[in-house]
Structure formats: C-alpha cells, structure tokens
C-alpha cells in the first residue's frame, strides 16, 4: 500500500468572542494531530461529540484554515502536495480528489435545487464536462447509488433520509475522487437503511478503488467497516490501531471506556453494572494539563496530572497509544471472548 495523505502536527484553534475583560478566548479544537492514510484503506475516526472529528475532516479538505501543521496529499507515489500551503486557486484541482459527505443530509443539500443540479454542481464548478456528457455522468452516478433516473427532477424534501444520504454520496462521487471523508454518513439513518448505505459504500469502494476516512461515533459500525481506527479525545489522537487489535485489546483507557459503553445487540452479553463508565468530557476551553484524559481515567497516577504522554507505537506493533502505561495496562476488549472481558462475564451471569 502506498501513502495517500499525511496529517503532520496539525493544530486548530478557534477564537471565541472576547471574554469578560475584553480578552479573546481560544479553544483548542485539535492539538498536534499526526496520522497517515494509506491508499485503499478505510480509516475510522471515533470519539465523543465535540472531540474534533468534523473539524479534522474540514481541515483535510481545506474547508478551514489550520492554525499549525501540514496536510500533505500524495496523488501518486513520489508526488507530494502540501495542501495547507496552497492558495484557494491552487487548491481547486485537488479538491476533486478529496471529497466530503456531510453529517446531516438535509442541511447539506440545497433545498431549492433539483437533485440533478445538486449532483451536477461540482462538475460545473470544476468545468469538467457539459451537456450530454454531464447529463450522462450525473445520471449514471445517481443510478450507482440507487436513485432512479426519473427522480432527478425532484427536490431534496421529496426523498427519504436514506435517499438524501445517497444523493450526498453521489455528489461526492461524481468528481471521481480518490479519498472520501464520510462524516457520520450513516448515523442519522434507520438500521435497515443504514445497512443499505454501508453496503453501498463498500461496493463503491471496491468498484472505484476509493479510500475512506469514516467519521463515526458508532463503534459497532466502525468494527464492521474500518481497517484502522483513530480514537480522538479532546482534540488529541489517543490511540491509532488496526481495527481488530484495538477491539481485541485496547491500549488507551479512553478506548476501553468507549468499548465498555457500547451497547451490544445481544441480551446474553449484557454487561455487569457499568458504574465505572463515569465522568463527562470536560469543556474544551478548560483542557486539563498533563494527560487530557486524567480527569476521567480510572488508572490515573500522579504523573498523569503533570506530564503529557506521547503517541507512540506499543511494543513495536502497528498499535499506537498515548498513555503513560499503555505497554503494561491489561485493558478490556469488546469481542465476546476477548481475554479479560470473557472472564468477567463468566462471573456476571
């Protein structure tokens, strides 16, 4: 596999209106994010709401300026384009390669445009094709996502949530992108429709050789669709690992907390009382010092309050975590018989 995108030391600050004494307040939405996306993989980004997932996606597609760091795109082996260094005009051609599907299909589709024009718009903006060719391309893309040609004259409100999400996908795919960032693309959908869209995303990936960044808060879906998972907490990457390794044995206590909280659709696997799942995500403006997770971490020690742990490979494996004790903690996985948790279940029933 070759590298398609690198995010290097990326930080993003938002400036909030002036505070009490006319002082500007800053909010660190992303702090020194490093990650790599391999061509052909599905990389999931997970974490609680407000942890910075959407902001990261928007920084990658250059919809938002970054405060520090770089986003580098590798269109082919040996070629590197530093997206964060380009002007609006220079970046335009690369915008075709990296597309985003948004969280809320209703607000991301212009309600006053017909479906045909919604999907044609990117082709027109990028002046890719006209008339017959444009029409053919739009219709065939819509058909690929399961919207019949006779429906292209309708407005978004005349479609169901699942169909609107398909239209959003068609709009992203019509430019023949290499990388698609799907931000909670199935979260608002009913399970039966969610399954249809997940299968569609998989088929399209196989057909067009796509790479996905799949932003989600649903770890069940992530386990199903992702090759690798990046876990974010308060704007930091706290773990980055191949999906199965992460679900088998997480190396960061926050990942363990997320896995523990995940409801499993099997009453025989009902978990023992999760009194340990406690604490709330602190407000980003009051980020704790030291390890960002120490206010909620059940394994926190003195050092966690003062020193920030670095993200590093654990025992030379492909699993990276940012916890002082990542190498030694025996954390619970999510699979039915994943070490630790199986033992506990035996006691619980």
């Amino acid at each position: 596999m070759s590298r398609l995108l690198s995010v290097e030391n990326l930080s993003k600050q938002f400036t909030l209106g002036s505070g009490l004494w006319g002082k500007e307040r800053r909010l660190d939405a992303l702090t020194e994010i490093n990650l790599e996306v391999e061509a052909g993989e599905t990389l999931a980004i997970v974490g609680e709401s407000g942890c910075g997932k959407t902001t990261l996606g928007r920084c990658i597609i250059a919809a938002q300026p970054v405060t520090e760091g770089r986003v580098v795109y590798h269109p082919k082996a040996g070629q590197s384009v530093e997206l964060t260094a380009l002007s609006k005009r220079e970046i335009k051609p690369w915008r075709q390669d990296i597309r985003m599907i948004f969280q809320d299909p209703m607000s991301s589709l212009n309600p006053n445009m017909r479906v045909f024009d919604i999907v044609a718009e990117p082709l027109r903006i990028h002046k890719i094709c006209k008339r017959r060719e444009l029409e053919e391309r739009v219709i065939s893309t819509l058909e690929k996502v399961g919207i019949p040609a006779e429906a292209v004259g309708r407005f978004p409100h005349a479609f169901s949530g699942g169909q609107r999400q398909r239209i959003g996908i068609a709009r992203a795919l019509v430019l023949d992108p290499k990388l698609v960032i799907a931000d909670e693309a199935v979260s608002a959908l009913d399970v039966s429709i969610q399954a249809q869209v997940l299968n569609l995303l998989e088929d399209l990936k196989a057909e067009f050789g796509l790479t996905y960044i799949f932003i989600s808060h649903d770890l069940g879906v992530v386990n199903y669709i992702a090759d690798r998972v990046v876990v974010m907490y308060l704007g930091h990457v706290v773990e980055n690992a191949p999906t199965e390794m992460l679900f088998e044995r997480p190396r960061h206590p926050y990942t363990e907390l997320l896995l523990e909280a995940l409801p499993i659709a099997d009453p025989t696997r009902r978990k023992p009382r999760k009194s340990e799942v406690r604490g709330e995500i602190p407000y980003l403006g009051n980020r704790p010092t030291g390890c960002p997770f120490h206010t909620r971490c059940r394994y926190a020690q003195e050092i966690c309050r003062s020193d920030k742990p670095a993200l590093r490979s654990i025992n030379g494996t492909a699993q990276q975590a940012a916890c002082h004790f990542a190498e030694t903690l025996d954390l619970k996985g999510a699979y039915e018989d994943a070490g630790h948790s199986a033992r506990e279940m035996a006691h619980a029933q």
Partner: protein
Amino acid sequence: MPQTPMAAKPILSITDMSIVFTSPDEAPIEAVRQVDLTLTPGKTLALVGESGCGKSVTARAVLRLLDSNAQIQRGSISFAPPDEAPVDIARLKQDSLPLRAIRGNQISMIFQEPMSSLSPVHTIGDQIDEMMLLHEGLKPKAARERSVALLDQVGVPGARERADAYPFQLSGGLRQRAMIAMALACKPQILIADEPTTALDVTTQAQILDLLRQLQADFGMAMLFITHDLGVVAEIADEVAVMYLGDVVEQGSVFDVFAAPKHPYTQALMRSIPKLARKAERERLSPIKGTVPAPKDRPDGCAFTSRCPHAFEPCPSVRPARTEVGNGHHARCHLLTPVPVEEPA
C-alpha cells in the same frame, strides 16, 4: 387480552389500539393501526422500530398527549394500579380531572430532548418542587428537600447548589438527569421514556441506562422504553415489542426475541446490524429491501408485505392474527398461524 404468563399482574394493557390523524386537505392517516402491549411493575418493555412506525404516537396516547387532530379510534388503554379500579385511559376526557391526576403523577414521561419538558426560565429545583406542590400538596420547604434528594439520587453532583441552576447551565447529560428527577418526583408507577439517550454520547448513554435500571429497582415502576437501537434494547429491556408501520408485529421476552425472532421483519432487522465480531467471522449485511411505505400505501393485510422476502398469497389482503409462538411470545405473521384443516377453494 390473553393473560401473560408472568408473576406480576400487568399495570397497563393496551389492546387493539388504533390512532388516526385527520387533516383538512388530506385523507385521514391511521398512524397506529394495531397495538397490543402490556406493562408489568418492575419490568421494562422496550418498544423498537424504525422512524415513523408509531412509537412516539403510541407513547403519547398513553398520557393522552396527542395533537388535537389525533383520535384514538379503536381499542383500550387499561390502567390498573394495584388496589384501584382499572381505568380506560382511552375513554377519559381530554383535560379531565382523572386524567390530570394520572399524568405526571402515576404515569410520567421523559423525552429525547430534555428542553421539551424543562422550562428554560425556571431553575430545575423550582420545576421539581412544582410537581410535588401540585400533586402531593407538600410545603415548599419539604418539597425542596425532596427535590435535592432526588437530584442526588439521579446522580447530579452538588445537588443542593445545582437545584438553583437553570437548564442552560447544565450539560446534556445533567439536563437529562434533571428531567428524569422531575419525572420521578411523584414516584410514578409507570415511566415512559421516549428515546431518552438517542442524542447522547455512548458514555453518557451508558450512565443514563444504568441510572434508569437502578431507579427502577429502587422505585419498582414499570417502564416503557422507546428506542430504535437494538443494542440499547438488549441492554435495558426485560421484554421487547417490535413495531412496523403502525403495527406491533412481535412481542416477547428480550432473550427469546433476540435468540429466535419469529416475525420476518424482526429477523430482517437483526440481520441488518453489524455484529461485533472479528474480521474472520464478518458477514456482509443483508439489508431489508426498499423503504417503509407511507401509511396511506400500507396494504390492508400485513404491513410488511411490500418488503417481506416470504410474502405469499394472503399477506396483502388478510391481516395476520396475533399468534402465540412461545411462552409469552407473540407475533403476527401468516407463516406462523396454524394451517387451516380445510383449504378454502
């Protein structure tokens, strides 16, 4: 209503309920067509189904909180608290005294969006006090003592100070807890929870589910828990009822229904969620084909006909009967009804 083989007597039985919405320029819509449900003290019944299938309408009917264009056209909602004569809530007059005595007092409700039941201009303490002043005739001081105790019980840290907070000063999780405290103010016998965790993060959701389980053990109330998430059902429910397009198509113990779903819709629903398994055991999802039709396009017979892989001749026109398929486990599907001895010509 067939007797459910459970130890405790049902406290609420909904039988063959139908709810119709009328509007001046459209044909009437039967949003809820056939609902049979029973709630038992100390037990949680999860009502699960896709968006628009009628879960919230069913729940609101129990408290008669439906919009004015809605009508309970058929069926009964029998509320039978221990030591009291049963009342058919469906027959009570809107805003009548007996209805107001039940609402918020014996039966209360929590919602997905806490701000739909909390007032933004009053402190949460005042709002909880108010419930007790209204229904229990407590003195203000005593009411506040109980409010603080309740807030503490639902896990609001610093309850005494937080009682003076306005809802906007609380995080989503705390607001949800404040709403739960308010719903529990009068020790209801039934708590109806309409997607109370859908808008929350998984970690907060886990806390709220825990809390509800704990409170149920403490208060012994019956709970109707509405959700579209089968994972949440498996976590919280004793019993589950599956709804599709206005019909309850299957109801039974959560263990039976998950282990061996009998209705084709329940089966299909279970197959469309990803299993939490390793890559080697990974199976491609098999989604239900098509989408839920609008209520006006629902066939007279089984509502699932247009999407059912097993649909056969009687399905579109004949409504399947409620069939017992196991101990306290019922489903409505022609595949499950005993074949008549003599085939009609």
